[in-house]
């Protein structure tokens, strides 16, 4: 037997199902975002943890010039070190058939004795591991293999230490070390032009004159060990062997990229649901206030019959519970499917043996809790009013609402106001809170609509800024080893080269106070035309004769300002260390970098004219000749071709943001429609007597609709400017959460984006006006007028 009050609840809800659905949908949007992002975090986090554990991701990494294998045993003896895996890791150029531009690869050796890897174990997607003693067999990274259609059994041409070798792909695999598979220092993946390759130790070591030695080291620590002490000791042991400083998993490029992604998701998991649930709370408040006003007499009757205030209060809270539960159900299902779809985007960036969406059930429970919390908070005052109403008073009709001339009229702007406009203004002024809530809801919807456009505007700007104004080279060539000036001369004279500018980069640790970062300090020529350093206004920064220019983000991370002196500890050669002042901050959007005048850097290193690469501008007619020549240049380790990077960027980041844009667009439309529809339905219900009166005295349907909609139209107009401002704020907040050391976004919003937001909100408003306007025609004129309000 259902409680009669619950029957009443169900029937009341049935009569207002349109509004129940509208509010639940808005709530569901927020919850879906929350469940989706939290589940994505859970999926990425747990998949990563399982992968790292099962495939023994190393905890400390180090690279060096050359050290005898025997040194590995000494490293193993350092207290806290559990496992040591010495290996050879080198950069190579790949020559893909039918592709002019060279690709590059990172070749990593497998254990010498053909035994299993102890750390960073390979997961084989297909094929097999190289046989012990096989000289030409390699396992190829999965992302590159897929992007280029390569399979086990195919040949791969690799320039190994200057010699073209044709290797045989025996397997396709991936490793926890390269979940994010990109060149060192690159923040975006380029799966078509970069691969990780694994091959047996001996052929690789012999080719690089490292037989019996290693140039790369991975460590696992005993549980509970603090890495700092181990790193200090390892650095001490490796220093004589040209080591560039050991670092932890946190600083490892792939792991760091994943961390950054999770940080962004965590920010979104809070910001977005907060916005939606606030709107939903406003809407619930409006709906319930209306019900309580409408059911004033019923409340009195219930109390007269002996229901307690608590029972009445609980009854009205149940309206909210139903909406909250419905919202959670819709949000849960939507979040589940959106998440499962969106997880595909992550496979563009991150490679796992399997990335299967896992619903975070705790997020569902949290969603229910949060939605109920938000809506109950939204209606507490209303329920309290219902409960404390003395029965006798409630039985009497409410006196006519108290009105006064609106502010506009009091200051004398009234003579040309139509009665409809006066009614609208006075209504708004008499009950400012509902009007304010509606305006807020609409402003939020407008703001949500600005965000996706702002994202693409920012990306467009970023592309222009980074690829047209900052990086004006066509290609950047890196050498395997720092070379003399003649090396630069060779690059300058490759076919098609119009201009070449030398670069000298050296690994270093920058330290300011207690904070430090390990990165490459790049020396470039003053007046560089190809790699220009720009400030926040987009003006070219002059390279100072001494001192550093660095990414603004790097200065922020170090806590340093222009004029501060940072400790630069070079981790190559003689390993000089000295204090260098910061002379300016560079605006850039990917990675962090520090620059010096190339001459100053060489002085610091006590070198004459060494380079380890060059920025190159090409005559496009000789594009293919240049690419062919550079493939055959023995000392070139990597060639980064700008237009290839741009294409990769469009395939990955731009595509994923495109998907997210569509999602946000749908959410914004739901909110805009829901808010206007809900407000219009409430206005219709509250003002049915007025509207019926107007119909009876002879107003036409269109005129009466005008009166109903006028007030909401004023609120829509009022909401738009606030919405645009809020959208800008939201975009800044979200972009700030994107602002990591690996990727940052400039904040750029084009007028067209604002215009689109306005158009969409107006269209959603017009649609809900139309739906509610139809009901004006169905008003029961006599019934409304003869009923006591």
């Amino acid at each position, binding site marked *: 037997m259902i409680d009669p009050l619950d029957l009443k609840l169900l029937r009341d809800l049935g009569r207002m199902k349109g509004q129940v659905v509208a509010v639940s949908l808005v709530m569901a949007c927020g919850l879906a975002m929350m469940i989706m992002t939290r589940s994505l975090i859970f999926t990425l986090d747990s998949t990563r943890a399982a992968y790292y554990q099962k495939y023994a991701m190393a905890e400390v990494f180090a690279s060096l010039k050359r050290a005898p294998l025997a040194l590995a045993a000494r490293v193993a003896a350092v207290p806290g070190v559990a496992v040591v895996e010495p290996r050879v890791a080198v950069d190579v150029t790949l020559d893909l058939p039918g592709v002019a531009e060279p690709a590059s690869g990172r070749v990593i050796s497998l254990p010498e004795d053909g035994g299993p890897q102890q750390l960073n174990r390979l997961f084989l997607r297909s094929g097999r591991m190289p046989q012990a003693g096989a000289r030409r067999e390699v396992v190829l990274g999965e992302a590159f293999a897929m992007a280029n259609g390569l399979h086990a059994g195919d040949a791969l041409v690799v320039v190994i230490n200057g010699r073209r070798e044709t290797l045989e792909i025996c397997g396709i695999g991936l490793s926890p070390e390269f979940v994010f598979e990109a060149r060192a220092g690159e923040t975006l993946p380029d799966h078509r032009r970069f691969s990780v390759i694994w091959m047996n130790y001996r052929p690789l070591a012999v080719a690089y004159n490292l037989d019996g030695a290693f140039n790369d080291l991975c460590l696992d620590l005993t549980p509970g060990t603090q890495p700092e002490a181990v790193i200090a000791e390892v650095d001490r042991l490796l220093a004589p062997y040209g080591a560039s400083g050991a670092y932890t998993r946190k600083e490892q490029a792939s792991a760091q990229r994943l961390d950054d992604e999770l940080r962004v998701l965590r920010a979104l998991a809070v910001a977005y649901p907060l916005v939606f649930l606030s709107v939903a709370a406003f809407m619930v408040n409006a709906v319930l206030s209306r019900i309580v006003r409408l059911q004033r007499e019923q409340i009195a009757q219930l109390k007269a019959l002996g229901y307690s205030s608590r029972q009445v209060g609980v009854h009205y809270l149940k309206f909210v519970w139903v909406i909250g539960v419905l919202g959670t159900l819709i949000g849960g299902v939507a979040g589940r499917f959106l998440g499962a779809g969106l997880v595909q985007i992550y496979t563009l960036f991150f490679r796992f043996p399997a990335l299967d969406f896992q619903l975070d059930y705790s997020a569902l429970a949290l969603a229910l809790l949060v939605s109920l919390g938000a809506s109950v908070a939204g209606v507490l005052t209303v329920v309290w009013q219902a409960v404390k109403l003395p029965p006798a008073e409630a039985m009497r009709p409410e*006196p*006519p609402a108290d009105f006064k*001339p609106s502010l506009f009229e009091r200051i004398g702007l009234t003579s040309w106001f139509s009665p409809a406009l*006066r009614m609208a203004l006075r*209504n708004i002024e008499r009950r400012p809170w509902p009007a304010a809530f509606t305006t807020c809801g609409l402003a939020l919807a407008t703001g949500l609509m600005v965000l996706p456009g702002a994202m693409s505007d920012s990306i467009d700007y970023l592309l222009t800024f980074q690829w047209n104004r900052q990086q004006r080279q066509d290609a950047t060539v890196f050498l395997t080893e720092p070379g003399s000036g003649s090396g630069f001369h060779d690059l300058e004279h490759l076919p098609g080269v119009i201009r070449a500018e030398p670069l000298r980069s050296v690994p270093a640790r920058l330290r300011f106070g207690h904070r430090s970062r390990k990165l490459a300090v790049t020396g470039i020529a003053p007046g560089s035309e190809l790699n220009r350093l720009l400030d926040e206004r987009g003006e070219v920064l002059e390279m100072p004769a001494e001192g550093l220019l660095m990414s603004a983000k790097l200065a922020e991370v170090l806590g340093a300002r222009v004029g501060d002196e940072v400790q630069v500890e070079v981790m190559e050669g003689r390993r000089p260390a000295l204090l260098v002042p910061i002379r300016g901050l560079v605006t850039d959007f990917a990675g962090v970098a520090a620059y010096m005048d190339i001459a100053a850097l060489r002085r610091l290193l006590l070198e004459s004219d060494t380079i380890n690469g060059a920025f190159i501008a090409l005559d496009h007619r000789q594009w293919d000749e240049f690419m062919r020549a550079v493939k055959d240049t023995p000392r070139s380790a990597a060639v980064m071709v700008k237009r290839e990077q741009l294409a990769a960027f469009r395939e990955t980041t731009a595509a994923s943001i495109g998907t997210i844009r569509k999602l946000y667009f749908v959410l914004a439309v739901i909110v805009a429609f829901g808010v206007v529809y809900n407000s219009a339905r409430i206005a219709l219900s509250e003002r049915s007597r007025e509207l019926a009166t107007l119909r*009876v*005295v*002879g*107003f036409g349907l269109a005129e009466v609709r005008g009166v109903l909609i006028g007030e909401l139209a004023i609120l829509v107009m009022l909401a738009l400017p606030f919405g645009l401002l809020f959208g800008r704020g939201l975009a800044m907040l979200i972009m700030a959460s994107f602002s990591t050391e690996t990727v940052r976004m400039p904040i750029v919003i084009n007028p067209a984006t604002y215009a689109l937001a306005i158009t969409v909100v107006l269209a959603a408003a017009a649609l809900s006006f139309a739906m509610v306007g139809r009901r004006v025609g169905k008003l029961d004129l*006599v019934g409304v007028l003869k009923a006591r309000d």
Partner: protein
Amino acid sequence: MNVEPPLPPPPSAKQVFEARGVRKVYHTGEVEVVALHGVDVALEAGELVVLLGPSGSGKSTLLNILGGLDVATCGELSYKGWALDGAEENTLTLFRRNCVGFVFQFYNLIPSLTARENVALITGIARDPMPPEEALAMVGLQERMDHFPSQLSGGEQQRVAIARAIAKRPEVLLCDEPTGALDVTTGIVVLEAIERINRELGTLTVVITHNAVMAEMADRVLYLSDGRIVKERRNSTRRPAASLEW
């Protein structure tokens, strides 16, 4: 926007409404309720007619059909020779706008508009309205024109509703229990206003009540029962509203 009756002049220049066999059936769910069982009636200009009868006798239904708020299920109804049965919604809107004034038991003022503005709502759309001030003066409210409904007593609110109804100079004033929510003294003041309008403007006035005393102020009294006019009475003299007591 004005709609003139398109038909030839009515049979009698004085005749305003003529109803023949007007029937009204309501369908609520599966129940069929017959509210009017075929009413024949003719109402003339300048008359003050009182409809008397118990609840459910069909008074309000008849009034609503006369005023174009509702349409008859079958039967013929004409206003000055112009057929109202089967008229379209837009036509009925214009009929209400220009020809009919309504007063209900509940005043149905727009709370966000002052007395003057409530009246001005009509004067803004009607064909030949009187100034709102004049309409309010006729009901004795010239002093309280800029008050909002919440600042007026019940009787005053009802008089604003009457002023609003007559500001369009309607041919017909239809009042459904105009004093139903008022005490005797204020009720009398409201009836005086109705009486004055009927006398001074010559408006055909139909008043619904179940208070038999009010029949004394009418020219003609129609008794309704069970959806039919069961009796008709003509008063030789009208008693002034001020002298009524109940």
